[in-house]
């Protein structure tokens, strides 16, 4: 319990550091936000008034502190372009991102684990070669290629799916596969190598010497051990999907966090960009924490210390 609490507290400095970094980076980018917001053909007077009302004339430190203070209270400021609270926009978009990432993760976990296990137990034979070839393609093809390919084949040619998503579960299948494809490949490869390594362990010989059948040895002794590193990776990938859904969301027109961020960048909507980046960072950090804790729940050697 104490360890868990300690790990929780350890994410606070990480988050503070991230806020400061985002804040500074966004101030370094050239261009006056107020001027951009108002567009061309306005008097310098108007720009100055807006600058004041947005607190942009205050010293950086003051701006930063007030930002942090407000963020802690759940107030991430107003979006310049959409004229609505950033928090509200994010919370509105988040369910779509969650739905997409969860579906992608479930796809990646299932496909990755099953093909990894099959590859491991047929090591160096045809099924193994086949799965590993596929997974290599999985990890090396970029998301936008997979997305476009799936769109072309399944939505345009076969017309089993619609090109863009309306947010329903069914319409999310294509984008979920596109997003999960990469992860499925890396989970498969990791599952395979981990299981093969574990099968060399001494305790596998012990299990076989007891007279256990091959299947009982793999399911009862090897799998749980080989899953220790894989499960951490699976949890990490869920959080990285949530932050990495930007491209998929744009291609399939899903109104999630990723699309919010893309729009914020295009329109130089600083509060919105800050908000989305901060939010995704929190997701990733918490995701990593959960992955860490999962590992310690599963491994009795670490559990004892926790």
């Amino acid at each position, binding site marked *: 319990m104490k360890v868990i609490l300690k790990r929780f507290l350890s994410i606070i400095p990480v988050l503070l550091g991230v806020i400061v970094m985002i804040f500074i980076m966004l101030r370094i980018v050239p261009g006056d936000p107020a001027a951009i917001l108002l567009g061309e053909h306005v008097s310098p007077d108007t720009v100055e008034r807006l600058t004041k009302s947005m607190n942009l004339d205050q010293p950086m430190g003051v701006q930063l502190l007030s930002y942090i203070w407000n963020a802690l209270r759940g107030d991430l400021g107003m979006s310049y372009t959409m004229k609505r609270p950033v928090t509200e926009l994010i919370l509105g978009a988040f369910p779509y991102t969650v739905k997409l990432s969860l579906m992608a993760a479930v796809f990646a976990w299932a496909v990755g684990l099953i093909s990894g296990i099959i590859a491991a137990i047929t090591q160096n034979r045809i099924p193994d070669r086949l799965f590993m070839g596929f997974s290599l393609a999985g990890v090396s093809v970029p998301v936008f290629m997979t997305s476009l390919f799936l769109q072309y084949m399944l939505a345009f040619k076969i017309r089993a799916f619609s090109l863009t998503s309306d947010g329903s579960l069914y319409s999310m299948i294509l984008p979920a596969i596109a997003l999960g494809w990469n992860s499925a490949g890396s989970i498969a490869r990791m599952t395979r190598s981990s299981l093969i390594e574990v099968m060399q362990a001494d305790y596998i010989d012990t*299990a076989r010497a*007891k007279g*256990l059948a091959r299947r009982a040895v793999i399911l009862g*002794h090897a799998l*749980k051990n080989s899953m*220790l590193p894989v499960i951490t990776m699976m949890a990490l990938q869920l959080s990285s999907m949530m932050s990495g859904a930007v491209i998929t969301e744009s291609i399939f027109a899903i109104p999630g966090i990723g699309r919010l961020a893309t729009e914020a960048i295009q329109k130089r909507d600083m509060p919105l960009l800050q908000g989305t980046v901060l939010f995704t960072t929190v997701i990733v950090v918490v995701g990593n924490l959960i992955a860490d804790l999962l590992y310690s729940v599963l491994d009795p050697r670490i559990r*004892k210390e926790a």
Partner: protein
Amino acid sequence: MSTENVLEIRGLKSSFFTDKGEVPAVNGVDLVIPRGKIVGLVGESGCGKSMTAKSVMGLLKYPGRIVEGEILLGGKDLTKLSDRELREHCGKDISMIFQEPMTSLNPVLKVGRQVQETLLVHDKNIGKEEAKRQVIDIFKKVGIPEAEKRYSCYPHELSGGLRQRVMIAMAMVCRPALLIADEPTTALDVTIEAQILRLMKDLCRQNNMSVLIITHNLGVVAEICDDIYVMYAGKIMEHAPVFELFDHTRHPYTKGLLASIPRIGDNPEFLHTIPGVVPNMLHLPKGCAFANRCELVQERCRSQMPELVTAAPDHECRCFLALEEEDQNGTGRKGGGDR
């Protein structure tokens, strides 16, 4: 006195088929384990001791496999059995414990469950409760204190000595006729080593069980074995009952091994070692595998592998000098024999 043999290995050859060629890790081994006896298999590391044991248990992994020979368990040739048939004997009639108690137990399963599993595999009718009771029983027999509590421990919560006791419990729980122990004490402290050896000897006597103990340490076998096989480069070099072997050592290799056991009072700087290294199994020399390290090497040793001959009653030796030596100290030896 029963002369029945629990296990007979006849002409066993097990090889690894590597990219560079065949590595005959076990190269024509004959070995007999009488009921109720403790037999030692001794030799430097890499000579094929573990491979011999793994051949018996069907644990050889690709690219290794049994090439020829018989492994007779009560008259049944294990090398002819299917995987499934062999599995029925493993853990029940023959069981094995390994060198590293630290890594031989599954780290994520409770030790009690791991021992219980052996029972459940081989007796489909035994209930979980009854199995647990028997596990706790065997824990007590192998000297694990607070057996009930230890049942739910994970391996990392136990000391090396306790873990090896758990391994012994696991191997003993189905009351096998033969226990194969591959360097069971090499990883343990000397005091723990003595305890474990005593335990194995007691268990063997109480249950009329046979033990094949594998070690590179002649000191270990001297303490508990009835019969000793000395192995070198995949072949048996010398075989005799323990006192015969120590009193009338015939093979130059065995002599070298004996001389390199450190004794109290020895000057550690002058500790005897056998010069040279074990030959590469991939390119074994034509003659005797020990020739290039032997102090008494002769011309014929380099061209011809000597046979394993009976040099004295119950005493076999693979050396051209074995028979000649008989003449030299033949007058001095009386008794020795079977025990």
